[in-house]
């Protein structure tokens, strides 16, 4: 199973984890990206994500395919939350199952690295001093030089 999803709802880790479980598999690896309360010493009061939804889902599906080309995984679920994400809550959950753990852990690492480099989703941080900023992933190859 390859499941990719972009949602405004709070992410349910338990549900996502259960959805990739398989009696054939001994390992589930999960990565959860959570929002932080500070950046460069500034307090982050709110985070907001925006997606180019159909393209983001397409790129997420491509990541699933790339994983299957490299590792024998069973089920993959990649879910990204958009809209306001409160501090401490998850913006992204990547979960996948495989017979053995090494490939599950490698594949999750690949998935989050590739997602940060290719999936068109944007994060805006709103700071305590009233300013805000669109972030840029360091993995993004067309980012500004100063970040």
């Amino acid at each position: 199973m390859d499941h990719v999803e972009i949602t405004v709802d709070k992410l349910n880790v338990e549900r996502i984890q259960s959805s990739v479980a398989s009696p054939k598999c001994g390992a589930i690896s999960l990565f959860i990206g959570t929002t932080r309360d500070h950046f460069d010493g500034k307090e982050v009061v709110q985070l907001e994500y925006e997606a180019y939804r159909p393209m983001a889902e397409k790129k997420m599906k491509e990541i699933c395919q790339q994983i299957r080309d490299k590792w024998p995984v069973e089920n993959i679920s990649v879910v990204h939350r958009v809209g306001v994400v409160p501090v401490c809550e998850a913006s992204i959950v990547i979960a996948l199952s495989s017979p053995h753990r090494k490939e599950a852990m490698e594949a999750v690492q690949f998935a989050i690295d590739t997602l940060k480099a290719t999936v068109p989703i944007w994060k805006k941080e709103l700071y305590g001093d009233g300013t805000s900023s669109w972030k840029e992933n360091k993995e993004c190859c067309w980012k500004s030089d100063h970040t």
Partner: protein
Amino acid sequence: MCAHAYIGSIILMESQITLIFFAKSQELSGLKDSQLSVPQSVSYSQLLSLILQAFPRLEPISENLILSLNEDYISVEEEVITLQTGDEVGVIPPISGG
């Protein structure tokens, strides 16, 4: 669905594409999407120039944009992009998902 534009003696076939803007490109342009007439065949750099010409407010991030065509990134080295009316071109600032 192509318009015929006479420029001098050359007939250029044009397509009406839909541009969509996100994050910083949406903030700067003040638009979520827009229509633009472009030649049916352009290079990446020509397409980018046409977009910046039509939306000069994007200038501050002109060096940090990637364009997409129908939900795939276009290579900046692409010499021949064939555009049809209805095609969707994304104006994509640096991403920050995850």
